[in-house]
């Protein structure tokens, strides 16, 4: 296994997540796609740690912080989704435009 295979794999998963964020209508599905993107970045950080500085582990520590921040983001995101659902009886993101001009 070389670093390049991990780079290609993580980039592929990141772009799949990007496609989901751009095209999904359901807000929960958008959050699922965002989780995929977070995970691909974590995979990339750990792969860099393994192949570039295997004795440093700083990349793994950053992955820990990313996991923490992703958990916080998901918590607040789900709370916002619930609030929007209560107000609109739906969470289709292309129907929710009340913050647009």
């Amino acid at each position: 296994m070389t670093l390049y295979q991990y780079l290609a794999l993580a980039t592929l998963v990141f772009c799949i997540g990007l496609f989901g964020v751009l095209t999904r209508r359901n807000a929960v599905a958008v959050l699922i796609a965002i989780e995929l993107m977070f995970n691909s970045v974590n995979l990339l950080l750990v792969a860099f740690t393994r192949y570039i500085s295997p004795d440093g582990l700083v990349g793994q520590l950053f992955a820990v912080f990313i996991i923490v921040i992703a958990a916080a983001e998901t918590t607040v995101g789900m709370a916002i989704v619930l609030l929007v659902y209560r107000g609109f009886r739906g969470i289709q993101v292309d129907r929710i435009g009340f913050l647009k001009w």
Partner: protein
Amino acid sequence: MTGESLAFYGLAFMLVGASILAVSVRNVFHAAMYLILALFAVAGYFVLLNAEFLAAVQVLIYVGAVAVLVIFAVMLTTRLTDARVRAHNEQVGAGLVVAVAMFLAIVMAMWSTSWPISDAAPAVDNVRTLGRMLMTRFVLPFEIASVLLLAAMIGAIVIAAKETGPPQSEEST
């Protein structure tokens, strides 16, 4: 084919397949299930990359907490099997073009960079080293992360809680 490459390609199949299904299936609950599969595949990669602590954290936090939160939100909100509700907006083609262009751009940038690949042996005591770093050099980010989690928790409660305080009486202003 060595065991490592066998594990790599097996997990790659699992991760990419689950990711594609997670962003494409109509039923959001099924998408959450495929997300869990993808998260497990990433945990497998962490084991493969000598990051045992992160593999455990991945399973505990992502599969145990985040995925359950996602399923919780799915249960509380959506009409799951309503065939009239479209799963994707009308920009699937544009999104596909953007994603593929992004993939090619990043891969080309990564391939044209020369990475300083090191041949050093990976750290043997993964958990101990990470714990030492968290308590010494990275203690400030560690504390900030705990404050962030507390703020997110309180924020989620405040945002999502129904207003069920004592009924507002007419004369109190």
